[in-house]
């Protein structure tokens, strides 16, 4: 099995990517503005729900139950989907999933008698995860992203920076420039309405011409074998109803047991994602209906690193995620860096725990550290994923890996931590170290502050001042003033 998660394998570590973005004031302003707006809307829509916490608890319970019985529900889904006229394919990793998709597309194109193979796509992050677009292009298949934001990303040869709003890092004026160039327009207004109108004209042709659609899934319902996709534009609705052939790429964690479970998730998801009470478009379809909609329907069930997250309860919980993006919008780290710093299509707090786990801790190893553990993500997560706790768990795995390698064993951090732990275990040596630090700091002290500290501490003094150690530690004061009093 060869798991691949977007371009994570080739990306630099988080602090290096973040360094580049922190210089880009325009992007930072865009991210700040957009997240502030969505965040405020979400807060409003959550506040009005008297049973919000109960809903979260219910969602967590449904997900936990489903994941514990995943084989059962996946097989149930398969059985019911086939019974309704769908076809189900199982893919272990990115390459397998892409190979299946390509085979299906080529066969459908042949059947439809089209010489050039094209597909229209509705937002599917999972297809970015497996690098589907480039795999299709290599096989002379042209993918057209039809979700507005995804289209913007595709046009700009860009990467998504948010899991719900992929082009969040671009403002209206930047989008207008892209449209002018790619749609070969001579004039275009700057209002959101002008831009959507232009996109509508541009996409409508594709919807009418292209006979193969690719979708993701928000939920796969085991009981009925149905797929559910929610969106705001209606372009997704076009993609899943107009083409003759529809292929849905579904991560195996997307399955839920019953139709009625949607009751919980369809309340939580839109409020958390965009601050709407309900998504404007909720498409649910089951198999094939003669004379209505796609006449050929395929589901590709994708593993790509998911099953190996099942053994540990802390890791399994990550698969609860319904990709609402709420954790990104409240994250103070994401607020500064936007999504590209995470080097993965999965960004923000969820990206920081999902990408390294999908990668089997082989890539994205800096991401568990890309958090101040402030806990804002856990507070908003509609399916109650304890992200801070998971970050700490994954840090433990990184350290373990490092301690088993020679370079890691002798790293400055590793040795420093060992030494600190030793001092904390031996109070006398700890006290001696306190005294030593006070004497030693003379080398770095200037006007009561420490400057140009060496090693890891340099990270501190590069951006902030550090007060020199006081003349007396607390315990010294205590010994002098209190101990003998009694």
């Amino acid at each position, binding site marked *: 099995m060869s798991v691949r998660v977007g371009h994570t394998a080739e990306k630099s570590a*988080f*602090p290096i990517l*973040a*360094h580049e973005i*922190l210089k880009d004031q325009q992007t930072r302003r865009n991210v700040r503005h957009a997240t502030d707006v969505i965040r405020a809307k979400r807060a409003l829509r959550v506040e009005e729900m008297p049973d919000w916490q109960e809903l979260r608890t219910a969602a967590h319970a449904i997900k936990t139950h489903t994941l514990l019985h995943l084989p059962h529900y996946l097989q149930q889904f398969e059985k019911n989907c086939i019974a309704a006229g769908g076809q189900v394919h199982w893919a272990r990793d990115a390459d397998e999933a892409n190979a299946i998709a390509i085979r299906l597309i080529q066969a459908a194109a042949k059947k439809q008698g089209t010489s050039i193979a094209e597909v229209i796509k509705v937002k599917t992050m999972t297809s970015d995860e497996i690098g589907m677009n480039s795999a299709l292009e290599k096989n002379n298949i042209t993918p057209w992203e039809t979700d507005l934001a995804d289209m913007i990303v595709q046009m700009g040869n860009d990467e998504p920076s948010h899991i719900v709003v992929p082009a969040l890092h671009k403002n209206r004026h930047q989008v207008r420039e892209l449209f002018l160039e790619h749609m070969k327009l001579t004039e275009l207004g700057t209002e959101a309405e002008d831009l959507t109108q232009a996109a509508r004209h541009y996409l409508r042709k594709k919807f009418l011409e292209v006979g193969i659609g690719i979708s993701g899934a928000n939920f796969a319902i085991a009981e009925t074998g149905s797929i559910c996709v929610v969106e705001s534009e209606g372009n997704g609705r076009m993609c899943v109803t107009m083409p003759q052939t529809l292929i849905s790429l579904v991560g195996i964690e997307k399955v839920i047991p019953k139709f009625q479970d949607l009751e919980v998730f369809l309340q939580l998801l839109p409020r958390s994602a965009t601050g709407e009470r309900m998504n404007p478009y909720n498409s649910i379809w089951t198999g094939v209906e003669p004379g209505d909609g796609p006449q050929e329907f395929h589901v590709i069930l994708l593993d790509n690193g998911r099953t190996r997250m099942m053994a540990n309860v802390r890791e399994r919980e990550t698969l609860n995620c319904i990709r609402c993006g709420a954790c990104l919008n409240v994250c103070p*780290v994401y*607020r*500064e*860096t936007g999504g590209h*710093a995470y080097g993965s299509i999965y960004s923000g707090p969820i990206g920081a725990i999902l990408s390294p786990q999908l990668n089997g801790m082989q890539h994205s190893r800096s991401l*568990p*550290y890309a*958090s*101040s*553990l*402030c*806990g*804002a993500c*856990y*507070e908003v997560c509609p399916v109650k994923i304890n992200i801070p706790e998971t970050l*700490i768990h*994954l*840090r433990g*795995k*990184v*350290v*373990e890996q490092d301690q088993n390698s020679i370079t890691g064993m002798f790293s400055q*951090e590793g040795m420093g*931590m060992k030494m*600190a*732990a030793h001092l*904390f*275990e031996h*109070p006398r040596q*700890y006290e001696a170290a*306190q005294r030593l630090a006070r004497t030693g700091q003379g080398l770095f002290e200037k*006007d*009561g*502050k420490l400057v140009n500290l060496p090693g*890891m*501490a340099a*990270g*501190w003094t*590069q*951006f*902030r*001042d*550090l*007060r*020199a150690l*006081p003349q*007396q*530690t*607390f*315990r*010294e*004061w*205590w*010994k002098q003033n*209190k101990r003998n009093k009694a």
Partner: protein
Amino acid sequence: MRIHLFIACYNDTLFPRTGMAVVNLLERLGHEVVFPLAQTCCGQMHYNTGYHQEAMPLVKRLMEEFRDAETIVVPSASCVAMMRDHYELMAHNANDARMMEEVKDFLPRVFEFSELITDKLGLTDVGAYFPHKVTYHPSCHSLRLLHVGDRPIRLLNGVEGLQYTPMEGADQCCGFGGTFAVKNAEVSSAMLTDKITCVRKTSAEFVAALDNSCLMQIDGGLHRESGGRGTEGRIRPVHLAEILNSTKANPLTAESLAWDEVSA
């Protein structure tokens, strides 16, 4: 009441003033303070950075040091969060029944400073006097892990002469985050810049909190911005305990919080 103090290693080394304030205040309120000298660290830095094995002995010896304590006060919310959120989990993961028992016995005796004063001692007015404009930064761990709520604000409002000014974006992280501050120093300081903007907007003279670690971050940023020159207009970060320890007879002053270049 006999109250044992766990000072936290970084307060011991960097912020002895806070410990002294806790001791003086509790004694002023008629309590006896005990400081077990063999205490060191709660294990948070190691644990949160991923050094779980190294944290284990620290956790065990801390509980050992405080085995006989009836009431334990900790003037560091993040250390208390470490204890409440992770000690049980550590015992569970280590499959250590004895440790689990010890944790269950230990935790109910631990109080974060503002919890001790309001819940255990039942006070909001401790007879403090601090005639200044003060804002409050709810550190993430006190806010989201301990859920201290408005306890610190109630305590501030109980101080004679104190004018409390709420901060915009109060629940935004200051960017400290333990080793995050050095491992992701640049992002950490970008977050700090946002926090400082909000602190400044209050035009308070002091910014209070329950964690000196966050205050060190804020202080470090403010000091860097000021270029280290003079005290004029510089907002002073101060632990809540030090404000509550301030009285008419023994007032806390901005000068006493100054960095050395001013007092020297």
